[in-house]
């Protein structure tokens, strides 16, 4: 215990002696939070759409009004603006200026009057399937609103849809907590990944090698000081999420702290492992950024739903720590979930930490033997 304490004190001295790196560690997540937080946004409003009203009747104008009077769409009247609206619509759709064209045929009014099924045509730019899906639904909602004045088939089946946890369906509620998970693993792993490789570069690792310290003691002693640094960085990120991006924290802060601590430990252990393998700081840093950031963004469910991935990738996602913490932090922060909801996820993080630290110790003592 006393020996571990010595390593901890030594490592703290390392941290405090290098205030530039420390500032970077605290500034970087804030900067990344800004860029990520503002650039990742799925909310779709004011979709550019063109309308061609060939019916030009009272019902058709009512429908056009429904399209104009909401913030789903920004409507251009193609018939008024262009001599050949169909061609113009085609051109604008191809250039990406319009995402949708709505055509109300000439017999729209008479069909409505005679209670036949009136048809309208909608052409959607499907390039981005996500946007196309949303645009398709905006149409449905507007048409439903329009037909509510008639005897309606939707009356037969009553559907009440209730959106829980995020009633205004803001995508920030989804991305910002996720971002915390990604930044936390990145910073924590980066911190420790440089710690042993730095000693390798400066040659001071030999002093550690010949010391009476046992390998696990060195590994643990080198990990502990960074818990505090990571926690402070995590706190800064959380404050930004809460007060700058306005994501309310529904759950218990203590539960959040507990799980964050676990996740930080896992991340630090990952960094230590990289550090024992990488020959230089350059490679350690590069490897850490690659190993933490790419899988954490791509294979954790941060943006891309895990459910729709092929099985091998789903299996891989199970060994990415961020996958578990993402579920936890979204649950606790946005949904107000409690400790008991995430026992399995927490256990997974504990197992990760144990495995990573063990492998790092083994790796370290093997290096040590080779040197001796």
């Amino acid at each position, binding site marked *: 215990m006393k020996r571990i304490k010595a390593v901890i004190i030594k490592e703290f001295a390392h941290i405090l002696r290098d205030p530039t790196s420390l500032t970077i560690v605290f500034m970087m997540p804030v900067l990344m939070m800004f860029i990520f937080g503002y650039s990742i946004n799925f909310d779709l409003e004011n979709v550019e759409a063109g309308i061609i009203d060939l019916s030009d009747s009272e019902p058709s104008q009512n429908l056009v009004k429904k399209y104009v009077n909401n913030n789903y769409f920004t409507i251009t009247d193609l018939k008024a603006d262009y001599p050949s609206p169909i061609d113009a619509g085609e051109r604008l759709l191809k250039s990406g200026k319009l995402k949708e064209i709505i055509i109300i045929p000439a017999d729209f009014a008479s069909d409505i009057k005679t209670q036949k099924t009136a048809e309208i045509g909608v052409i959607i730019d499907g390039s981005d399937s996500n946007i196309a899906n949303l645009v398709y639904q905006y149409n449905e909602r507007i048409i439903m609103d329009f037909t509510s004045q008639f005897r309606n088939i939707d009356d037969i089946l009553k559907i009440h849809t209730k959106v829980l946890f995020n009633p205004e369906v803001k995508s920030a509620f989804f991305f910002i907590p996720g971002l915390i998970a990604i930044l936390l693993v990145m910073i924590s792993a980066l911190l420790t990944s440089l710690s042993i490789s730095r000693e390798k570069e400066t040659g001071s690792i030999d002093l550690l090698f010949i010391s009476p310290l046992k390998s696990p003691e060195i590994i643990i002693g080198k990990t502990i000081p960074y818990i505090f640094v990571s926690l402070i960085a995590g706190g800064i990120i959380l404050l930004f999420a809460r007060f700058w991006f306005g994501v309310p924290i529904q759950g218990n802060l203590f539960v959040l702290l507990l799980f964050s601590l676990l996740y930080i430990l896992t991340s630090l252990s990952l960094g230590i492992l990289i550090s024992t393998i990488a020959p230089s700081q350059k490679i350690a840093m590069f490897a850490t950024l690659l190993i933490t950031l790419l899988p954490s963004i791509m294979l954790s469910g941060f943006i891309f*739903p895990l459910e*729709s991935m092929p099985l091998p990738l789903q299996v891989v996602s199970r060994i990415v720590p961020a996958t578990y913490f993402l579920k936890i932090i979204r649950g606790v922060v946005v949904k107000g979930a409690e400790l008991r909801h995430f026992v399995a996820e927490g256990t997974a993080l504990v197992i990760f930490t144990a495995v990573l630290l063990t492998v790092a110790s083994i790796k370290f003592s093997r290096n040590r033997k080779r040197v001796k």
Partner: protein
Amino acid sequence: MRLRYLVKKEFIEIFRQKELLPMLFISPMLMIIILGYVVQTDIENLPVNIVNLSRNKAAYRIINRIERSPLFVVKNVYNEPRDMVDALKSGKVKAAIIFRDPLESTPGGKVPVPYPEIQVLMDGVDSNTSAVAAGYFNGILKNYILSDVGKLGMSMPVEVKTLIRFNPELKSINYMGPGIVALLLTILTLFFTSISIVREKEQQTMDTLLISRLTTLEIYIGKAVPMGVIGFIHMTIGVAVVMFWFRIPVRGNLLYLVLAAVIFLCTILSYALLISTLVSTQQQALFFAWFSMITFILLSGLFTPTENVPGWLQFIVKVNPLAYLIKVIREIFLKGNGIEYFYRDLLSLAVIAVVIMGVSLLNFKRFIAK
């Protein structure tokens, strides 16, 4: 042709970095195949719970349709009242659908109405998924009613005939695949070129280069060309994978893609050289390159549309070369547009290229002069 020797030397230097070599050749293939599968945002296999309190046959039929749909995976069907919020909180299911029999007051007492009442509880945390899932669910219900509608002798007042252009099956890979090709042109060229000069600085071999008879411009070009060639090879691999592995149709002319790629490479390489002359260690170079890469990618419209980005970030979108490249590549692949649709984007890209090359070259000259 003194330049040739410098280019040859640079290639040797690249191939000599054994630890980075596998990244250079295996990573583009791996990247595009893995990313191709990862970035599909199609919503499938959404886990749902169902509570069926209805004795109505219609409820069974609708549940049956939900179970058969590839979009939903029904985890549990409960036949007694149950609290669904807990399962939603833990994230085990993304939606809960509850069927009930409402009672209708008739003169003879209360009787069940022919259709169940349906309540849908959605996990709204992922706003995108929940919106799309709700839409799909409504679609299932609507189809069910439509199949039943003949029996009721009713018709829909208004029907929307939707035509989806450019990507009729709405497969997200068709949109993402070409974007990833643009990524291949960016990532490794940026990283490798950004350390190229600072490495010589660190190893103090820069002086050898300076006392040679090479002109500044020759050194500059010699540093840029090798990674440009490698970037081009990566892009070709990427296009091949996208076309033959993911079977994404190419509707436009690939020559335009080559043109856009060349302009883009000029931009990104001179940007990387600018980083390389400004920093003092390879580590700093990598860090800057990495940070630029993240910014470029996030604000390029690759994953999320850039229309919603706030004003001050719009500026970065406007000067982001990757944003233009991705837009052009997508138009070529998906829409089969000719140059008349994107010559403006190409021009903007060219302007950015000229500006960055100018700044970078000036800085390089100053660096050499020192």
